[in-house]
């Protein structure tokens, strides 16, 4: 059978026209097949981003929405705060000590203030706050010691490694509330210098957009207190349960001895002394001391020894310490480094960098013996 060439010629454009229609339909169908899933993905992302804005609405109906501005707006959102402990100012004024020791548990396990008073024959007041750091020490010195108007012979700070030049370390409202006034512009300015990276910007943007910190401020305590009613039957026991649990069960004596310290080795960024000094509380602290004619002393504690040797120090840490010492002494402060002291062997350490309770007198004596100039 033969086919008329003319009919073929007529058929080809028809088929071609049909094919292009099919192509268009297929392309449209492919587009539709893609559009719906992509739209659903975008819808999911949009809902995930928009729904948490409801937290703002929650705030509008609660008292937390009307909280006053934080004393460190660069770090904390507005929220309820524990009161400033103003009684400490009056207390210091009444006692008028010759020496003050300020620090975290490093000072708390190294200096027995009663024994130090006995050794020096002068009054000693400790300001120990476990898990505190330079921001807390600075505020305690400014708002308690300086505000009390006393002129102690020396204010002694105990610190580890890089802590004096890192105000962001342990920047915790739970501690700071007690020593912070309604506004802390100097500390806020220092904190703001650290809160400039992308991480902080994103964090601050999220916080402002969703206002989640305000919800957190009332929701978390509510969650944490909710089980109390079931755990304790009597109202008095309910009120006291959390405080008693923390003070009687989770106190330092009830904890295990651990070799690991609560802070690790510093990274290189933290050991860049020249970069970190202007962004730390140290210049402010020294300025205040000069203005109030008070001598500041800084004791760098030795970290936990390794076997019979003092712990190793990286070249960067050694360089950091050298510069810190130079800076402090140039600004009229006293500096002492415990590192490498043969009378601080591993056997006197409890857990991490803490000293055993029964060796507290030994380390207090050591403080006086190694620093005669400070206690003269």
């Amino acid at each position, binding site marked *: 059978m033969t086919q008329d060439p003319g009919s073929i010629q007529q058929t080809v454009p028809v088929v071609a026209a049909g094919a292009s229609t099919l192509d268009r339909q297929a392309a449209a169908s492919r587009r539709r097949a893609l559009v719906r899933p992509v739209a659903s993905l975008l819808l999911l992302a949009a809902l995930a*981003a928009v729904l948490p804005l409801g937290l703002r609405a929650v705030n509008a109906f609660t008292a937390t929405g009307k909280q006053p501005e934080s004393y460190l707006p660069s770090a904390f959102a507005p929220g309820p705060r524990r009161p400033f402990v103003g009684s400490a100012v009056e207390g210091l004024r009444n006692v008028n000590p010759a020496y003050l020791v300020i620090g975290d548990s490093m000072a708390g396990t190294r200096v027995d203030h009663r024994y130090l008073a006995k050794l020096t024959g002068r009054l000693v007041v400790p300001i120990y706050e476990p898990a505190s750091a330079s921001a807390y020490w600075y505020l305690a010195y400014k708002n308690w010691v300086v505000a009390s108007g006393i002129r102690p012979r020396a204010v002694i700070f105990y610190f580890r490694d890089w802590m004096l030049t890192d105000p962001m370390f342990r920047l915790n409202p739970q501690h700071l509330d007690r020593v912070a006034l309604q506004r802390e512009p100097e500390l806020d300015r220092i904190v703001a210098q650290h809160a400039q990276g992308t991480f902080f910007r994103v964090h601050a943007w999220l916080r402002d957009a*969703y206002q989640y910190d305000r919800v957190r401020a009332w929701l978390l305590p509510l969650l*944490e207190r909710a089980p109390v009613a079931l755990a304790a039957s009597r109202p008095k026991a309910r009120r006291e349960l959390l405080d008693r649990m923390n003070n009687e069960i989770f106190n330092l004596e009830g904890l295990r001895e651990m070799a690991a310290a609560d802070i690790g080795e510093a990274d290189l960024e933290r050991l860049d002394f020249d970069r970190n000094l202007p962004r730390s509380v140290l210049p402010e602290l020294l300025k205040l001391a000069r203005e109030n004619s008070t001598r500041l002393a800084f004791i760098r504690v030795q970290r936990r020894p390794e076997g019979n040797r003092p712990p190793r120090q990286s070249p960067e840490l050694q360089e950091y310490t050298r510069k810190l010492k130079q800076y402090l002494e140039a600004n009229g402060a006293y500096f002492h480094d415990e590192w490498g002291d043969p009378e601080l062997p591993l056997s006197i350490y409890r857990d991490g960098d803490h000293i055993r309770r029964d060796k507290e007198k030994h380390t207090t004596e050591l403080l006086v013996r190694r620093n005669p100039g400070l206690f003269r």
Partner: protein
Amino acid sequence: MIFHSLTFVCFFAVTVALYWRLPHRWQNVLLLVASYTFYGWIHPWFLALIFATTFVDYWSAVGIERWPAHRRRFLWFSIVSNVGLLGFFKYFGFFADNVVASAALFGWELSRPMVDIFLPVGISFYTFQSMSYTIDVYRGHTHARHGFLNMMVFVSFFPHLVAGPIMRATNLLPQVERERRFSASSARDATLLIAWGFFKKLVIADNVGVIANKVFALAEPDFYMLWAGVFAFCIQIYADFSAYADIARGTAKWLGFDLVHNFDHPYLATGPTDFWKRWNISLTTWFRDYVFFPLSFALSRRVDEGRRFGLRADLRIYAAATLLTFLLSGLWHGASWNYVIWGGYHGLLLVIARASASAWRPRRRVRKYLRPFQWAGMFALTNVGWLIFREPELSMIWRDLWLSPFQSTQLQHQAGVYLFLLAFLYSIPLWVQSLWVRFVPSDLAAAVDRDEPDVRFGRVLGQGALAGVMFAAILVLRSYTSLDFIYFQF
């Protein structure tokens, strides 16, 4: 680089944006660069190790196929290299400590070599994955690959590199080799999976982890405090590990890969066998295929027929192979005796369950009523296991197991109940999800964790709402104490 960091979010966004613009081969090149960047971020030195593992197993597999007469030697070369690498980095200190302690028992004083070996993150996972490839080639389950790039991507694929799930070559390598297409539906599911993973990690695991850490920091916890802490750890380890697996699966899905499920609501298990079908499934099946089966086979050729110690031969073989496999599995988790004991404990539970099942099998009607008791019993036994797992001091484990509730003071009792309830409060979403999956018809239950693409408007709206609620919860309730993923240390 860790998942819950801004660095990872940026890294992943850039990777995905570039990835889907490239042809297949360049996608694999990008994956390799991204994976090595991800791993090298922790420590650049780790890259040498992962490269060495890949190199050895690649050539071992090629050798197995090219020189059949020496295939056994190539297999052993691969196994010894991988186990040797793992042994040196993970178990050297453990081995040295035990040699010194054993010598001291005989009055010999040996000094421990002062070598600080830093455990490379994820080494336990990628050595097992890479080793399984050469074993599978040896067994003829897959063929040796001649593309080194694909092999490198298979070993180092970043979403699951540091904490699994452990993928098999037969599953992951074909996915590396074939072309992948972007699927918006899949990406939507992946996003929800990632959000659920972050929620479990940041809201549940990190919050209950604080409770567990506090209790296990006590020198002498009482009965109530201890078991509240164990319960908190039980929730923490599941939320933490399954969170990693979900984020890993979600990120892999964004890149067009499907990773295996590693968990199937393990705390709904009604017996030891059921538990191990649901917990860390990829590791359990790895040990089953590469340790348990070969061991059982080897033992079956040596064990006499007939009863010994009142046990049939098949039960004796099962018991020996199971105990040995689980002791090794325990040791895999960490270089410490408590992990070995934990493995042995679970092995023993499996053997007892098998022996009792062959001795007594209740009727179907009775089984239905027994199930809640079986569930409660298994949950209690799992918690005993977590006590052993969490407590590194053996003397403390012994002490803890003999604690009596009558020795506690009223304050300890109240504090223990309080901590238990607080941990339970944070864990409610986990229970809701597990119970939903157990009791709600499967198409609804799969809304959170589905594999099939679906674009029904109502479902998308539901998923979006769920993602929004999880994001809000992460913002408000996340713990400020950020803990590392537990399985990073293994």
